[in-house]
């Protein structure tokens, strides 16, 4: 970021416009109302195809289900988060070292060695996994019942789905991204209404607790997000 510019004011005399060493004259960014957000089923993905998006909706709905205490992946719009991440720097591996030669079969403990970006791993991983579901359970993942979906995801996580070594990271990415979408600041498209934070009792971006250190007492105040929204 470039060194910050401080605006020095004109030496106003007696009266005049607002002075002071202003750092910003930015307008208030009206916060997105939840009501203004597009319903999940009507969301137009930036990266995922319609089929891929349907897969992500179905898969994340099993990873973080709606029933029981607390919101699920769908209530918190995790699929939107994942699509936006895949369309952005995360998806394109902007930060990663992507020079060859690639040895995707190297020991997993030496870290990812796939020549595919995360966006590419999703694309090919969804296709391969969906095909396996079809071959194994009779239809694509999104059309299976919940029990078979859970069984399929378990097989995936247990390395029982034969995937090309370049797709080895697929399961880990999917699970990690789902949890990121669940818990990240709502500006990224997930954690709608900060519901996940409310559920576990995390105060979000408040970031000041001097008087609460050492108090064995449940902290009662709800979260605030970076945009200033309160829950």
């Amino acid at each position: 970021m470039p060194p910050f510019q401080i605006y020095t004011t004109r030496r106003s005399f007696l009266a005049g416009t607002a002075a002071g060493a202003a750092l910003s004259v930015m307008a208030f960014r009206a916060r997105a109302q939840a009501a203004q957000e597009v319903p999940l089923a009507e969301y137009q993905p930036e990266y995922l195809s319609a089929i891929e998006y349907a897969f992500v909706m179905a898969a994340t709905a099993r990873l973080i289900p709606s029933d029981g205490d607390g919101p699920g992946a769908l209530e918190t719009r995790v699929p939107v988060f994942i699509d936006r991440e895949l369309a952005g720097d995360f998806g394109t591996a902007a930060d990663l070292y992507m020079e060859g030669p690639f040895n995707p079969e190297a020991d997993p403990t030496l870290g990812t060695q796939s020549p595919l970006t995360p966006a590419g791993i999703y694309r090919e991983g969804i296709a391969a996994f969906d095909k396996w579901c079809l071959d194994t359970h009779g239809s694509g993942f999104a059309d299976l019942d919940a029990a078979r979906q859970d069984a399929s995801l378990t097989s995936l996580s247990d390395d029982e789905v034969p995937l090309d070594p370049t797709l080895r990271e697929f399961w880990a990415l999917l699970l990690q991204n789902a949890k990121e979408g669940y818990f990240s600041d709502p500006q990224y498209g997930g954690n709608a209404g900060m519901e996940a934070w409310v559920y576990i009792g995390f105060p979000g971006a408040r970031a000041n607790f001097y008087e609460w250190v050492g108090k064995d007492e449940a902290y009662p105040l709800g979260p605030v997000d970076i945009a200033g929204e309160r829950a």
Partner: protein
Amino acid sequence: MARTDPKKDVVIIGLGWTGAILGMELAQEGLEILALERGPDRETVPDFQYPKVIDELKYGIRLGFMQKPRNSTLTIRRTLTEEAQPYRRLGSFLPGDGVGGAGIHWNGQTWRPMQIELRLKSYVEETFGPATIPDGMTIQDWGVSYDELEPYFDRFEYMAGISGKAGNIKGEIQEGGNPFESPRSREYPMPPMKQGVDAQMFAKAASAMGLHPFPRPAANASVAYTNEYGMQLGPCNYCGFCERYGCINYSKSSPQTCILDALRRMPNFSYKVNSEVLKIDLAEDGKTATGVTYFDAAAQEEVFQPADLVIVAAYALHNVHLMLLSGIGEPWDPAQQTGTTGKNYAYQMNGSTRMFFKDVAFNPFAGAGANGISIDDYAISRIDFAKEGFIGGSYITAGISNGQPIRGIALPEGTPSWGAGWKQGIGDWYGHSMSIGSHGSNMAYRDCYLDLDPTYKDRHGRALMRMTFNWKPNDIKMTQFMRARIEPIAEAMQPDSWQSSYKSDGAQYDVRPYQTTHNVGGAIMGEDPKTSALNRYLQVWGQHNVFVMGASAFPQNIQTNPTGTVGALAYWAAEAIRKDYLPNPRPLM
């Protein structure tokens, strides 16, 4: 070479902690100094601005303040025969980037070593016999003693502003401090931090077992503070976003909060950002450096910057990489056991026990980077190596620093990692768990070292550095020893359940999960040019106008976090340069 710039008296590579310290010290000599930082500039406002920086995804998970592997990385292998693979995504360690370096996003845990750690080899041989040192372990003495360095530890701690309670002032044990610490000349500059519920419970249990708990020393300000440069810290508000994040509150000691605005007032000091040093240029006879070559990203050209004195102050790993690329010192050959550059790379051996308490509200988000209660009863200086069968030691701490949910909500063993069971689990257990951790030493070995990779290159076409490292039986034995001491404390606290995570026999280094960014060694200091890269003043043996700062100088890793020692060594070297080197430039040893 696209251009050659006018000569400077001093070039400093990197503007993190040691770059800023050396910049300040040498600027006071009136020298013309240019610091070259390959990353961007960073200021508290706007870069760590509240609340924008309180963004777990951007900084905690996507690692916004860290080095991008695309720009700079290395390859890693565990053995001499394994093929090294690139560290493509950050995991095990997170090198910093930009002005301030890792000093902006550390936790602030600031310690001194045990006296014997600086002369570890002699200590082991004298106390337990030379046979105690196993084959292949290459530990060495540092060439400088703790007593010589004590005033410089004091200087760094008062400059950075450390919150703590002294345990040993000039030999007199102090109530409430660490009774086993190396003696210090005076109290800490600020009182200790406030302690969380977990630390208080741990302190109680440890005391009841006859152990000696004390507050962990913290580079998080407990009160408002002004240092020797007039720079200021504000009191920490326990925001729970310390490591990986720049501090919103001017509360974490960093080059920004402690040095840089004062350094910017020195007219003979200047710095450039987005300027990556590609190599240190040597004279034809190889006896001195003539300056450095760097890539000026703004002008998109290579620049030769001549200088009389070169201070290598980049991160430990990058220091060694530059030395290897520049032909400074002979590279370490593990088979022949010759050479010095890249030798003795070491890491940190850590482990922990986690406990779950349904009825305790830990409020983990109310945390600072470095508060916590520690015990040093099993420090390296207190272990009978002959009896226990390992060389090493560790301090043990309970100190929750954050409650960030994406980074992982600890769940009792057996809880599924996804699905209804996981969701129920996080609701039940978030805020109801704590851990007791061992932070321990890591020895140096013949086959743990750094050299240049034969295959992979960086964006400038230079060979990547290759790290060869694995866990060794000695340090695994040490961590299992600590486990056996920690688990009884955990049980005594009567949690609903607990579970442990310590390296065991045969553990292989896994680069994927974050462990620690305490990479040390590779440009080690010592008494003998045949076995070390630098002399005791951090001066390169072969090129007397090159001094290399940082934890790359550690011959093996100490049990504690490196920064305190890095800071002390920087002030120690600065004084040697000012008083002894500048009046008469030459090899000081």
